[in-house]
């Protein structure tokens, strides 16, 4: 029972790192990026290729995955995404679905359709018992890394000048740029960090989901969207709450009632949106 809770929390933390970039672009920058999973896939592939082809150790591939996806994100943001900030939701959905459709064959062309593993080193694998709970070392590692990231992001957004500039830039772009805030640069950096985190998440997730393959962006797109939809647009905290809820429910549901599979998480999402159309923690809801 507690073991399942632990696994669920680990999965939720992983989902958080994967999806928090989407939560930021969607919640803060108001952009529906269905191609977010493609950046996670890029990071996962970067880690897998570095490790399998060049023998880079696991811990060193994680920052590389972050950097690769962040650079990719900045390039695409400057060239393509930027043009669509003011566009309608439908245009954004179509554009990013198009990007996903392009990303999958590109990955398939260069890297093949077999899953690429990211092997976890010996000191991070294995399990131990603690107070009757079976704890996987790698899952504990994920919780620690992702928890640290969540804390860092939150304090960064609340406590720094950058965060203080980002929030007004989101609320009213024109006024913010009128006050001398370089909104373009802010958005580019924010987008890049979100993509980088997705890449890091992709590298971390590779071992748990059985390797990275070209269908990754589609397989996890729905999960990301659910995290953001449940959590609401409150940026970091909302995404964290949504991801933990989804992670625990998904793992527990698959363990206790495998026959109805993912039914529970979809039902919870629809129910949440019926009760709170803007998610659990939405901005302007008085919280």
């Amino acid at each position, binding site marked *: 029972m507690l073991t399942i809770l632990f696994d669920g929390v680990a999965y939720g933390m992983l989902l958080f790192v994967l999806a928090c970039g989407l939560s930021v672009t969607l919640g803060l920058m108001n952009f529906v990026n269905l191609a977010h999973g493609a950046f996670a896939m890029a990071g996962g592939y970067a880690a897998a290729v570095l490790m399998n082809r060049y023998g880079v150790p696991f811990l060193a591939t994680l920052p590389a995955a972050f950097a690769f996806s962040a650079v990719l994100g900045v390039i695409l943001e400057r060239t393509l995404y930027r043009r669509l900030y003011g566009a309608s939701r*439908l245009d954004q959905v179509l554009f990013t679905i198009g990007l996903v459709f392009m990303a999958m064959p590109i990955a398939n062309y260069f890297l093949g359709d077999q899953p690429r593993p990211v092997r976890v080193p010996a000191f991070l694998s294995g399990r131990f018992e603690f107070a009757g709970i079976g704890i996987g070392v790698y899952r504990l590692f994920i919780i620690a890394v992702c928890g640290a990231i969540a804390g860092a992001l939150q304090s960064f957004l609340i406590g720094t000048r950058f965060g203080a500039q980002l929030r007004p830039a989101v609320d009213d772009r024109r006024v913010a740029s009128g006050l001398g805030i370089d909104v373009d640069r802010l958005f580019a950096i924010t987008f890049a960090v979100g993509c980088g985190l997705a890449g890091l998440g992709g590298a971390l997730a590779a071992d748990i989901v059985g390797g990275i393959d070209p269908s990754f962006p589609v397989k996890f797109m729905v999960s990301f*969207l*659910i995290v953001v939809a449940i959590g609401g647009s409150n940026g970091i905290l909302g995404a964290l709450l949504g991801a933990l809820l989804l992670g625990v429910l998904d793992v527990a549901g698959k363990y206790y009632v495998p026959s109805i599979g993912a039914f529970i998480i979809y039902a919870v999402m629809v129910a949440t949106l019926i009760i709170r*159309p803007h998610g659990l923690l939405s901005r302007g809801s008085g919280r």
Partner: protein
Amino acid sequence: MSVALPAGAVSAHLNRKARWRPIEIVFWLAIVALIFAVPSRALLINEILLAGLFALSLDLVLGYAGIVSLGQAAFFGVGAYGAGILANAGLTEPILGLVIASLIAGALGLATAPLLLRGSDLTRLMVTLGISLLLGEVANANAWATGGTDGLSIALKPVLGLFPIDFNGQRNAALYSLIVLFILFMVARRLVQSPFGLSIHAIRENRLRSGALGVSASARLVAIYGIAAAYAGAAGALVAQTTGLVSLDVFDFHRSADVLLMLIIGGVGYLYGGLIGAAFFIALRDGVSSATPEYWEFWIGLPLVVLVLVGRDRIGAFFAKAIATRGASLIGGGAA
């Protein structure tokens, strides 16, 4: 002449718009001719017709009512399973099965529509997507009725007792689909030109103002969503009946995404867009996937990205110069 147009001028303008244009008659006759001219491709033509019907249902929701949906597959799937389960329960008369399956899908649409009246576009995207994924899990879990991952295979009586629509009667199947599509298209055409359809248009253009004019937005949006759901159900039921198969992928996300792409390619908000887009999309997919079976998605994605970057309204205006301003407002307005 005063600033306000006389009532006669308005109704004359609307009547002129409602009139059949020669190109429309040619369009429908061309499809009939095509089915008889190349019976060997009847299977592909049938697929295009049914995808067109599915896209037509989304056009009613997105193009006319302005509701962004990623879950039209929910109703498509309910129609398909409805027709399949009815046939396996002994109701092997195709037309009756089609009608009942569509009505079930329509009822589901009416039941879920109130969920779409609140929240933002993102909420609507997620609720519609969530409902179709939920139904997929329900179908998977209730394997005693739906066959689970194996799917259902169904056998039907000939239509009207005369025309078999099984694998040996592909031309009949395409004609059957065409007749149903034509009838439903006529109903939709009449519907969007009726006072009801015009009021939906008004709600999409300016909900606040139409409310001030005494148009109840919520009830009308629920109604059009229910009608569109019945259309999607009819498309699903026809796919089940003419292919003899229903499988879990009717609820898949890619089905909702594909139909959205078809509609966008063909153009939103003038009914024919779905049919043209479906023909273009399936022909493209068929052509490209036989050339590069592994990478065909790339060649669907690339034009889509270019389409959005160039601007859908600009391309629409390019194709319809004569009605440039109006076309742009229609196509652009579909996303509002």
